[in-house]
Protein backbone atom coordinates (compact mmCIF):
# COMPACT_ATOMS: atom_id res chain seq x y z
CA UNK A 1 0.00 0.00 0.00
CA UNK A 2 1.01 3.60 -0.64
CA UNK A 3 1.93 6.14 2.07
CA UNK A 4 3.62 9.54 2.20
CA UNK A 5 6.57 10.18 4.51
CA UNK A 6 7.78 13.64 5.53
CA UNK A 7 11.01 14.63 7.27
CA UNK A 8 11.78 17.90 9.04
CA UNK A 9 14.71 19.96 10.26
CA UNK A 10 17.98 18.09 10.94
CA UNK A 11 16.39 14.77 9.97
CA UNK A 12 15.36 16.15 6.60
CA UNK A 13 18.97 17.10 6.00
CA UNK A 14 20.27 13.71 7.09
CA UNK A 15 17.79 11.79 4.93
CA UNK A 16 18.40 14.18 2.07
CA UNK A 17 14.75 14.65 1.12
CA UNK A 18 11.69 16.41 2.59
CA UNK A 19 8.99 14.04 1.35
CA UNK A 20 8.81 10.55 -0.17
CA UNK A 21 6.10 8.24 -1.46
CA UNK A 22 6.66 4.72 -0.18
CA UNK A 23 5.05 1.39 -0.96
CA UNK A 24 4.82 -0.67 2.23
CA UNK A 25 3.27 -3.99 3.30
CA UNK A 26 0.05 -4.29 5.27
CA UNK A 27 0.26 -4.48 9.10
CA UNK A 28 3.38 -2.37 9.27
CA UNK A 29 3.73 -0.16 12.35
CA UNK A 30 5.15 3.34 12.30
CA UNK A 31 8.18 2.02 14.19
CA UNK A 32 8.73 -0.77 11.61
CA UNK A 33 8.76 1.95 8.98
CA UNK A 34 11.16 4.10 11.02
CA UNK A 35 13.60 1.22 11.50
CA UNK A 36 13.50 0.49 7.74
CA UNK A 37 14.22 4.17 6.96
CA UNK A 38 17.16 4.23 9.40
CA UNK A 39 18.59 1.08 7.84
CA UNK A 40 17.99 2.17 4.21
CA UNK A 41 19.76 5.47 4.85
CA UNK A 42 22.35 3.96 7.21
CA UNK A 43 21.38 6.49 9.85
CA UNK A 44 21.50 6.64 13.62
CA UNK A 45 18.99 9.05 15.16
CA UNK A 46 18.14 8.79 18.82
CA UNK A 47 15.26 11.08 19.69
CA UNK A 48 12.63 10.99 17.00
CA UNK A 49 9.03 12.22 17.14
CA UNK A 50 6.45 10.44 14.96
CA UNK A 51 3.10 11.64 13.65
CA UNK A 52 0.48 10.02 11.43
CA UNK A 53 -1.99 12.32 9.68
CA UNK A 54 -0.86 15.25 11.88
CA UNK A 55 -1.35 13.47 15.21
CA UNK A 56 1.37 12.13 17.51
CA UNK A 57 1.30 8.31 17.64
CA UNK A 58 2.97 5.56 19.60
CA UNK A 59 5.65 3.47 17.83
CA UNK A 60 3.24 0.49 17.69
CA UNK A 61 0.62 2.47 15.72
CA UNK A 62 -0.32 0.51 12.60
CA UNK A 63 -0.24 2.29 9.25
CA UNK A 64 -3.07 2.40 6.70
CA UNK A 65 -3.03 3.05 3.00
CA UNK A 66 -2.86 6.79 2.21
CA UNK A 67 -1.42 7.78 5.59
CA UNK A 68 0.84 10.83 5.88
CA UNK A 69 3.63 9.85 8.24
CA UNK A 70 6.17 12.35 9.58
CA UNK A 71 9.45 11.91 11.45
CA UNK A 72 11.30 14.76 13.09
CA UNK A 73 13.70 15.69 15.90
CA UNK A 74 12.46 17.19 19.21
CA UNK A 75 10.57 20.39 18.48
CA UNK A 76 12.20 23.71 19.43
CA UNK A 77 9.58 26.37 18.82
CA UNK A 78 8.32 29.10 21.13
Amino acid at each position, binding site marked *: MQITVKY*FASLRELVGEAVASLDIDDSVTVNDLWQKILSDHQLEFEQVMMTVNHEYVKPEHELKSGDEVAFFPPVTGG
Partner: protein
Amino acid sequence: MLIEIRNKAFNAWTEVQIYQDSQSFRGQYGAIATFVGSMRDFNEDKKVTGMTLEHYPGMTEKHLEAIAKDAIGKWKLLDVLILHRIGKVKIGEDIVLVVTWSAHRKEAFESCRAIMEQLKSSAPFWKREDIKAGSKWVEKNTPGY
Protein backbone atom coordinates in the same frame (compact mmCIF):
# COMPACT_ATOMS: atom_id res chain seq x y z
CA MET B 1 -9.86 32.48 19.07
CA LEU B 2 -7.06 33.31 16.68
CA ILE B 3 -4.15 31.00 15.84
CA GLU B 4 -1.72 32.21 13.21
CA ILE B 5 1.67 31.32 11.79
CA ARG B 6 3.39 34.45 10.48
CA ASN B 7 6.30 34.58 8.04
CA LYS B 8 6.80 38.32 8.54
CA ALA B 9 7.92 40.19 11.67
CA PHE B 10 5.06 41.18 13.98
CA ASN B 11 4.79 43.42 17.02
CA ALA B 12 3.24 41.44 19.86
CA TRP B 13 1.66 44.41 21.67
CA THR B 14 0.07 45.82 18.53
CA GLU B 15 -1.32 42.38 17.73
CA VAL B 16 -2.93 41.95 21.17
CA GLN B 17 -4.41 45.42 20.88
CA ILE B 18 -5.87 44.84 17.42
CA TYR B 19 -7.31 41.45 18.31
CA GLN B 20 -8.76 42.60 21.63
CA ASP B 21 -10.39 45.65 20.04
CA SER B 22 -11.98 43.43 17.38
CA GLN B 23 -13.78 41.33 19.99
CA SER B 24 -16.99 42.11 21.82
CA PHE B 25 -16.05 40.66 25.21
CA ARG B 26 -14.94 43.95 26.82
CA GLY B 27 -16.18 44.10 30.43
CA GLN B 28 -16.42 40.32 30.67
CA TYR B 29 -12.76 39.54 31.28
CA GLY B 30 -10.98 40.83 34.34
CA ALA B 31 -7.67 39.10 33.72
CA ILE B 32 -5.35 38.87 30.74
CA ALA B 33 -2.10 36.92 30.85
CA THR B 34 0.39 37.29 28.04
CA PHE B 35 3.64 35.65 27.12
CA VAL B 36 5.98 36.93 24.43
CA GLY B 37 9.05 34.97 23.38
CA SER B 38 11.55 36.99 21.42
CA MET B 39 14.87 36.49 19.70
CA ARG B 40 17.89 36.87 21.97
CA ASP B 41 21.43 37.56 20.83
CA PHE B 42 22.76 34.59 22.82
CA ASN B 43 21.82 30.99 23.61
CA GLU B 44 23.70 28.63 25.92
CA ASP B 45 26.53 31.20 26.08
CA LYS B 46 27.00 31.33 22.29
CA LYS B 47 26.53 34.57 20.38
CA VAL B 48 23.63 34.21 17.94
CA THR B 49 23.17 36.61 15.01
CA GLY B 50 19.86 35.39 13.59
CA MET B 51 17.58 32.39 13.27
CA THR B 52 15.43 30.48 10.82
CA LEU B 53 12.24 28.81 11.98
CA GLU B 54 10.78 25.82 10.14
CA HIS B 55 7.35 24.31 10.76
CA TYR B 56 5.12 21.48 9.52
CA PRO B 57 2.54 23.19 7.31
CA GLY B 58 -0.90 21.74 7.95
CA MET B 59 -0.05 20.05 11.22
CA THR B 60 1.36 23.02 13.18
CA GLU B 61 -1.77 25.17 12.84
CA LYS B 62 -4.03 22.22 13.70
CA HIS B 63 -1.91 21.28 16.70
CA LEU B 64 -1.86 24.83 18.12
CA GLU B 65 -5.63 25.02 17.67
CA ALA B 66 -6.04 21.80 19.66
CA ILE B 67 -3.83 23.18 22.47
CA ALA B 68 -5.90 26.39 22.59
CA LYS B 69 -9.24 24.58 22.60
CA ASP B 70 -8.10 22.26 25.39
CA ALA B 71 -7.08 25.28 27.48
CA ILE B 72 -10.38 27.09 26.85
CA GLY B 73 -12.26 24.02 28.09
CA LYS B 74 -10.02 23.31 31.06
CA TRP B 75 -9.80 26.88 32.43
CA LYS B 76 -13.13 28.27 31.15
CA LEU B 77 -11.33 31.00 29.21
CA LEU B 78 -13.11 33.75 27.31
CA ASP B 79 -10.57 33.67 24.51
CA VAL B 80 -7.07 32.67 23.39
CA LEU B 81 -4.67 34.21 20.88
CA ILE B 82 -1.55 32.43 19.62
CA LEU B 83 0.84 33.86 17.01
CA HIS B 84 4.09 32.16 15.99
CA ARG B 85 6.80 33.32 13.66
CA ILE B 86 8.43 31.20 10.96
CA GLY B 87 11.17 32.01 8.45
CA LYS B 88 14.16 34.29 9.01
CA VAL B 89 14.04 36.03 12.39
CA LYS B 90 16.26 38.94 13.44
CA ILE B 91 17.59 39.78 16.92
CA GLY B 92 14.89 41.39 19.05
CA GLU B 93 11.98 40.24 16.89
CA ASP B 94 9.03 38.47 18.47
CA ILE B 95 8.82 34.70 17.93
CA VAL B 96 5.73 33.71 19.87
CA LEU B 97 2.75 35.44 21.47
CA VAL B 98 0.24 33.67 23.73
CA VAL B 99 -2.66 35.58 25.31
CA THR B 100 -5.43 34.23 27.54
CA TRP B 101 -8.52 36.16 28.64
CA SER B 102 -10.53 35.06 31.68
CA ALA B 103 -12.68 36.34 34.51
CA HIS B 104 -10.03 35.73 37.20
CA ARG B 105 -6.24 35.88 37.29
CA LYS B 106 -5.62 32.30 38.45
CA GLU B 107 -7.10 30.88 35.24
CA ALA B 108 -5.37 33.44 33.02
CA PHE B 109 -1.91 32.80 34.52
CA GLU B 110 -2.17 29.02 34.61
CA SER B 111 -3.58 28.60 31.13
CA CYS B 112 -1.07 30.98 29.52
CA ARG B 113 1.85 29.11 31.03
CA ALA B 114 0.38 25.69 30.23
CA ILE B 115 -0.22 26.67 26.59
CA MET B 116 3.40 27.81 26.30
CA GLU B 117 4.70 24.56 27.80
CA GLN B 118 2.58 22.47 25.44
CA LEU B 119 3.66 24.58 22.50
CA LYS B 120 7.32 24.21 23.49
CA SER B 121 7.12 20.45 23.96
CA SER B 122 4.87 19.42 21.08
CA ALA B 123 4.13 22.08 18.45
CA PRO B 124 6.14 21.21 15.32
CA PHE B 125 8.59 24.11 14.97
CA TRP B 126 12.37 23.87 14.65
CA LYS B 127 14.93 26.60 15.13
CA ARG B 128 18.17 26.88 13.27
CA GLU B 129 20.51 29.48 14.77
CA ASP B 130 23.04 31.51 12.87
CA ILE B 131 26.27 31.51 14.83
CA LYS B 132 29.83 32.57 14.09
CA ALA B 133 30.76 29.17 12.66
CA GLY B 134 27.75 28.99 10.31
CA SER B 135 24.38 27.71 11.47
CA LYS B 136 23.15 25.00 13.77
CA TRP B 137 19.83 23.33 14.65
CA VAL B 138 18.71 23.96 18.22
CA GLU B 139 18.57 20.48 19.74
CA LYS B 140 16.07 20.95 22.52
CA ASN B 141 14.12 23.56 24.44
CA THR B 142 15.04 24.51 28.00
CA PRO B 143 12.59 23.26 30.65
CA GLY B 144 9.83 25.68 31.67
CA TYR B 145 9.06 24.53 35.20
